[in-house]
């Protein structure tokens, strides 16, 4: 007993040191180094880094293209989570508790087992493939554009646009594609949460004559709120990225007039098109700060009374 107590700290240290060491080496030190690199001028092609203080940050302040990227990231940050979570909750509740079939009080709508699989399809596609497919959805009709051809086929030819050729649509195209790509995951996530809700609560609500919407608002939503909160934070982090979709669909310059740019692509461009790794690291630090701020804010704003089930 005394021997064990005596050897407790070395014992614990022996187990803790390797993982903490690996974490520090591969996670923490890159952050610190990135911050240092952001204070230098470095081409990324040689070992020479020149310390220039905050010049990169001053340059960022005056960079109009970076403002466009930031604006787009903020649009993605606000619109994509709202759309995705709304659709995710709607589909999940329809699949799990939205049905009204005789014999079963709480069930999904007809065919829900099929929908469950179908909704998950986009999630198994790599973002790269999603982006390439959607580049053709929004292409001009004579280049195989699916959307424009569809519009023409149903007699709405006057609604056709040069989607990817029009600066004003670019960020909204990204919104649509990201939402499409992400919603399936949240359907599954919320489905799991909803299935853990005791059925008798629903039955009680039904006996009281509650409508589907009321049931959703008063029963389902409060009981899956924890999951929604996690989903929201996760979604916000994803919305700050958007790199793969923008880079593949619109190119390294963020599309026509750079109107579809996002911070991730701006970093890539600074690093690999301009060979200005210092500036790229500075944008990276900005992105880090933004992401952390957003996560903290979301966690605070979304905090709510936890409902105990038992």
């Amino acid at each position, binding site marked *: 007993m005394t021997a064990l107590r005596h050897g407790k700290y070395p014992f614990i240290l022996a187990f803790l040191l390797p993982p903490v060491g690996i974490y520090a080496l*591969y996670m923490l030190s*890159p952050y610190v180094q*990135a911050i240092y690199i952001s204070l230098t001028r470095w081409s990324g092609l040689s070992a020479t880094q020149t310390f220039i203080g905050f010049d990169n940050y001053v340059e960022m302040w005056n960079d109009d293209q970076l403002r466009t990227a930031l604006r787009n990231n903020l649009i993605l940050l606000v619109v994509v989570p709202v759309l995705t979570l709304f659709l995710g909750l709607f589909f999940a509740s329809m699949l799990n508790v939205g049905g009204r079939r005789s014999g079963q009080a709480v069930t999904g709508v007809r065919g829900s087992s099929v929908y469950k699989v179908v909704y998950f399809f986009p999630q198994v596609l790599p973002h*790269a493939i999603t982006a390439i497919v959607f580049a053709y959805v929004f292409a001009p009709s*004579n280049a195989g554009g699916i959307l424009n051809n569809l519009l023409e086929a149903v007699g709405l030819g006057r609604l056709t646009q040069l989607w990817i050729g029009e600066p004003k649509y670019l960020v909204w195209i990204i919104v649509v594609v990201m939402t499409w790509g992400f919603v399936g995951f949240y359907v599954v996530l919320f489905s799991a949460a909803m299935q853990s809700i005791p059925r008798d609560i629903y039955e009680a609500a039904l006996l009281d004559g509650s409508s589907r919407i009321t049931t959703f608002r008063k029963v389902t939503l409060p009981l899956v709120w924890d999951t929604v909160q996690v989903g929201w934070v996760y979604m916000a982090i994803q919305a700050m*990225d958007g790199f793969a979709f923008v880079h593949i669909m619109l190119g390294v310059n963020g599309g026509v007039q750079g109107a579809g740019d996002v911070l991730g692509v701006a970093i890539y461009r600074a690093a690999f098109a301009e060979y200005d790794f210092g500036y790229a690291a500075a944008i*990276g630090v900005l992105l880090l700060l933004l992401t952390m701020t957003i996560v903290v804010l979301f966690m605070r704003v979304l905090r709510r009374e936890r409902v105990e089930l038992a």
Partner: protein
Amino acid sequence: MSSSIERTTSGMSSTRRTFLQRMAITGVAVGPGGAFLASCATSGGGDDEGDSEPEPQGDVSDDNPLGIPEDEPLEIYIFDGGFGDEYATDVHQPIFSEKWPDVEINHNAAVDIGGELQARFVAGDPPDFVNNSGDGQMDGAQLITDGQLYDLSDLFDAPSWDDPEVPVRDTLIPGTIEMGSRDGTPYVLNYAFTVFGLWYNKTLLDENGWTVPTTWQEMMDLCAEIKSAGIAPWVYQGVTAPRYMNWPLLTMAAKLAGPEILVPVDNLEEGAWGHEAIRESAAALRSLKENDYFLPGVEGMEFRDAQGLWARGEAVFCPSGSWLENEEADAIAEDETFELAMMPEPLLSEDAVMPLETVRATAGEPYIVPADAKNPRAAMEYMRAMLSVEGARGFSETVTSLTSVAAANEEVEISAPGLASAQEALNAAGENVINWLYPTWYPTMENPGIDQATGALLRADITVDEWVQQCEAVAKEIREDDSVVKQTREA
């Protein structure tokens, strides 16, 4: 230069291919995980200047003019893209090995050159010879600025492979060495040779009895006729690369007012883009949109889709370089009757200073020897073998491209009709070959800078005056950016 342009335009397709690899590098900077590159980056692990060991050297003799060590291995990286790497393994390496059987060639092919080699450059441990091309190409100008490239003067001064009386320098098409030089020191060997012009659907022209226009007025008349026949007169590279239209734009302006108007453009002089001839040329190209002569929807297309529609007979004229035939080989092969040919850009006016036959042509496809290479002398010897007539002709036959080796171009039989017409056009041009260098010197000035301005011009979203203002603003930004090393030329 062409390759720097090709690199960016072949962007979309190779982007898809190489993108995940590169994500591995960037992903880092992107996400909060952001900076793994850094893990070795700031550790000061690189070879600093000065501490590198002296390069191995053999005795200099008539047989070994570069003094290469006869038994040291040579590590080679070839870009495995449009040209593949068979030309290296099947043509150049046998020529080299025949002379130097004891030099072991360590051959590597890579799709993403920068992705594979950037870290090795930083660490001071690069290969001996790099074909720095493709989507993952490392910025050549920046490599020179960072002192990462080996001075190739000895190569160009050495006797040529075929004739000891003639130095390598004199076997090359004039302008080749300058393309890869800074302040008179050559650092990059540009090996392939690209001719730029308007590529047209010869089958359609012949079928309809249309003739190749020689003036812009004839071009406009022909466009009207083509359009009334239900075909689109022009395409360009859509959302991907409207900058391809800069090539006819600047070429026509130079024909109108002389090649000296391109010098201030390259030298970033204020007002260079506002020259009357450049304005006139821009107005001419804008009139294609005003008259609805572009393929419908082209401004929203990927460049391969636009070029593919052209190759399938949906449009007649397409601006490009001589790689187009290779790039669209699949679409071209679909229809056996389809024949393409290159024409020089029409003259804006009868009183143009330069003749119609003037073309823009330049050496491209860069090959470099890193300054920290272990065996740089052998790498230069390999370049000397590439520049032999046999090596250059073999390259042309394998990859359907001209080379910078003048004698090889004369002797090579080109079976591809498009490239043959480009070769003819180049011969017809004689001395009247022009080029400009700002896209090589300042890649971000061309793209996204001028590229976006020209894109807007071609959509007729802006007037010619606004286009000039935007181009001037882009030039000004580069001019005033202290971190960019400036270059100038006199003629």
